[in-house]
Structures are given as C-alpha cells and as structure tokens.
C-alpha cells in the first residue's frame, strides 16, 4: 500500500536503509562462519564482535556482557529461567509486575508450575510500579526481580533506576525487559543498576529475528543452548551474522542522535494526544501523562470496540493496534489495561497509535481528520452510545 500511514512502531519498525546496506555483504560474499580460522571466517567474526561493541556502547555495558539471541522473547526466557535454575537452591521467589509482556508473564507462569512463587506487583492507574512495593515484596528467598523498563501498550516508563538500587541493596538479581525502551529512551545499565536486560533489534529499525541479552559480569544464568563455543558457550549455534551486523548498525543509528529523535517524536505524540482530546468526547488517555515512551499514544474510546476501530482505520490506510480482546484471540481485553483498573467495557475500546521517526505531521493531521469520523460512525452503531445520548 503506497499511502499507508504506519502508526504501529511499537509492534515493529521499518528496516533502516543504512542497516540493510550494512547487512547485505553478509548475505553474499561475506558468508564465512565466525568459528572458522581462515580469513573469511575471521572477517565474519570481526563483524559480529564490532556489532557487540555497538550494542554494548548503546546501553553503557561491556562487550563481554552482550549475548545475541534470536529475539526479545528469547532474551526474556533466558534471563528468567536461567536465573531461576541457577539460583533455585538459594530460593524460589520472584518479583514481577502485573503489566509485563507475555514473554515475561508466560515464562513466570511456567516457573510457577515448577514450584517457584511469583509476586506480581500491582500498578497505579497510570501504570507505574512503586519502588516501595518492590522493596516490601523482597523476602530472604527472593532470587530475581523482573520489571519492564517501558510498557508496550500504554508506554509508561517504570522507575527502573530506583528499583535497580533496591535490588542491588538487597543482593537480588534485577532483570528488565527493555524491548520497548532501547533505541527510544536513554538506557544505561550501570547508572540504573541493571543486572540483565532484554532487547530486540526490530523495535529500533533493525531486522527481525535478532535480539540480545545483557548479562552483567559476575551474574551467571544457566546456559541457554548447549553446543559450540559461540556467545561464550552460553548460547550455542552458528551466529546470525547478517542480523547481528544489522542490530549493531541499527542501535548505533537509534541511539546516536537520540535526544533530537525523542524531541521530534514526542512533539508529534503530544500533538496527536491534544488533537484527539479536543475532537473526540468520552475518551480516556491510558498510561502516564508525562513518563511515557516518546511515540506512544493510547486511548480508550467509550461505547465502541477496538477491533472495529482498527478495521476501519485499516480501510482508511492507517495501521494501528488495540488492547481489545478481539485482536488477542481471547475474550478478555488486555491484562495491562485491566491492571490499570479500567472496566472491561472501556478496555475493549482501546487504541494504540505508536509513532516512529519516519512519521510526519501531515500523517498525524490525516489521522486527526479520519479518527473522529470513524469513532462517531461506530458510536452511531452502538447500543451503548444510544443510552448515553438519551440521557443527555
């Protein structure tokens, strides 16, 4: 589609042309296996290692602390199961939050079936985890705290540095799922006292199918994949060289001019939020009003259902996302929106528009022109709106 307005940058982002260019040789002439000792292999090895430096620099880590993975979910799985297995003799208690991504929540559920105990901390109505509640939940048998850096649905940024300091003080390993944060907001593992951090390249204009786990030196999660000596023998398997190169290039580009990018994207976000608030009644902005990802806009529109909204936006050339039950394949709306305390019927009518650096003000204007009509059209069809209109 030529005129597509892509506002689903939290789902994935378009590959940066310079990233593609950097990757291309590793699909063709640079086909060596990084484990081979001859020149062709060593040149692939150098490419992997320089990408590792790029990733490490972007988050304030050492290159030896970066492990490439197949995706962000793999990094989450490895961090959580790896620490659980390595430390189960010390304790079987884990602290997390109610609004984590399924890559974390479903991993924790699998551990619960194996006898681990998980405390899921509630969030306030803006989606914030309180550092005090983390502190209060720590027990002598607590082995891991895993709290996301920024929420994928509502964009709320969690007080990671404060939680990291508490974890450090109590000697508990601290993991954060930073898949939505890296490349969007400043991340520094040392300043934030983070022991493990998950990230994913396609969220910052890198390729799909590649992620990384930062593991602070001295922290030893169980080996993820047994086999060869790749990734310091912790995650065996021949490296996905082209994608690793792409991830390195993408993270350099994304974090290189981060403050200008954040300024540009958050200006568009605030313009979109203000426009929707001005033009459409019976709405609620979900997520923290200020501590939110630069590109995240999430609204609930009363009396209508999110999937219908997405379908009509799609028919009008706008790609977006929803926390509606109907898009998740279950009958329950998003666990994140419910954790904020939203009633089911309000959560069903949610819409996430996530802005990226390639979006323009003209595109936002177009959405502000389309959206009020689409919402009104669905409300006119809704028996819930009829009741409200009759009361007015």
């Amino acid at each position, binding site marked *: 589609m030529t005129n597509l307005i892509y506002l689903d940058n939290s789902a994935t982002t378009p590959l940066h042309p310079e990233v593609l260019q950097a990757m291309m040789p590793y699909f063709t002439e640079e086909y060596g296996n990084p484990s081979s000792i001859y020149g062709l292999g060593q040149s692939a090895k150098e490419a992997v290692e320089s990408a590792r430096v790029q990733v490490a620099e972007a988050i304030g880590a050492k290159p030896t602390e970066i492990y490439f993975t197949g995706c962000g979910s793999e990094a989450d799985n490895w961090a959580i199961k790896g620490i659980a297995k390595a430390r189960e003799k010390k304790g079987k208690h884990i602290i997390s939050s109610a609004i984590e991504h399924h890559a974390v929540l479903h991993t924790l559920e699998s551990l619960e079936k194996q006898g681990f105990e998980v405390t899921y901390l509630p969030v306030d109505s803006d989606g914030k985890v309180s550092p005090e509640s983390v502190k209060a939940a720590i027990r002598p048998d607590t082995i891991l705290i895993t709290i996301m850096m920024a929420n994928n649905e509502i964009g709320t940024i969690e007080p990671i540095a404060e939680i990291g300091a508490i974890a450090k003080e109590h000697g508990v390993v601290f993991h954060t799922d930073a898949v939505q944060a890296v490349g969007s907001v400043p991340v520094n593992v040392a300043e934030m006292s983070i022991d493990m951090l998950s990230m994913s390249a396609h969220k910052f204009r890198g390729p799909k199918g590649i992620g990384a786990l930062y593991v602070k030196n001295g922290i030893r999660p169980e080996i993820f994949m047994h086999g060869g000596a790749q990734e310091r023998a912790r995650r065996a398997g021949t490296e996905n060289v082209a994608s690793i190169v792409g991830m390195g290039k993408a993270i350099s580009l994304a974090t290189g001019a981060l403050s200008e990018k954040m300024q540009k994207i958050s200006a568009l976000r605030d313009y979109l939020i203000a426009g929707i608030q001005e033009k459409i009644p019976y709405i609620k902005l979900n997520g923290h009003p200020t501590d939110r990802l630069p590109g995240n806009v999430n609204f609930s529109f009363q009396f*209508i*259902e999110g*999937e*219908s909204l997405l379908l009509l936006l799609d028919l009008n050339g706008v790609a977006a996302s929803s926390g509606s*039950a*109907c898009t998740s394949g279950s*009958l329950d709306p998003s666990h994140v929106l419910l954790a904020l305390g939203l009633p089911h019927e309000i959560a069903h009518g949610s819409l996430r528009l996530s802005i990226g650096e390639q979006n323009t003000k003209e595109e936002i204007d177009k959405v502000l022109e389309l959206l009020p009509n689409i919402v009104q059209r669905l409300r006119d*069809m*809704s028996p*819930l709106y009829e009741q409200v209109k009759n009361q007015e």
Partner: protein
Amino acid sequence: MYSEKVMDHFSNPRNVGELADANAIGQVGNAKCGDIMKIYMKIENDIIVDVSFKTFGCGAAVATSSMATEMVKGKSIEEALKLTNKAVMEALDGLPPAKVHCSVLAEEAINAAIADYYARLGIEPPMEIRTCKCGDCHAHE
C-alpha cells in the same frame, strides 16, 4: 483474517440503526464481554416486514448482525426462528474460530426480538424460542 463477505458487511452494514416503529426488540450479550447486539423488528401478520440492528462489538459482530437481519427480512416468524448461527456463518463465507460466538449472538438476538414480540402481546409464543442468559463471556466458546 476475514472473508470478503465479512468485510463487505462490516464496512457497509445493511439495516443499521434504530427502527422507529419497531414492535419487537431483542438485546443480547454484554459490554464486559465486548459485544452487544440489539435487533429491532416490525412484525405484521407474523411477517418480519422490517428489521434493523445496533451492535457494539468487533468486525465479526457487526457483519453477523448485518447478515442475520438480511436473512430474516420479509420472512415469517417461524422461518426466522429456524435461522441458525451456522447458516449466518455460511452466508458470510465463514468466520475465524475465535469469532464463532458472534454468529451465536446474532441467532440469539433474532430469537430475543421475537420473544419480546410475544411478551408485548402478552401471549405465550406458539413455538419454542431459544433464549440464553448471556451473563458469562465464555458461554459461547
């Protein structure tokens, strides 16, 4: 994910809106589950001379409402009560498995409207009407 027929009935719904002179109204589903269907009918001499709907719900909920109203328009009460969710789904060239409950809701809404018709007249329906207490989201899974 949806057939062309579903997308057609979703983007150009037939018979949408309230019916001013309706003498039968049925509403099923609930907001908590994410779908409510309300069917309005004008019934004369046991014939559904006009029908319309209002729906809060996903694309499949809107499309099944639209298709179900098309399928009972001009039909006798007896014929309308024979409409099954399966027939609505077939007419739409199928629905994804997670959306089958929407077609059940459409069948129930038709039945609920006809039950209301008899209730307003204060007479016992001469035939069996399938009604459902839709208090539970998972009742249709």
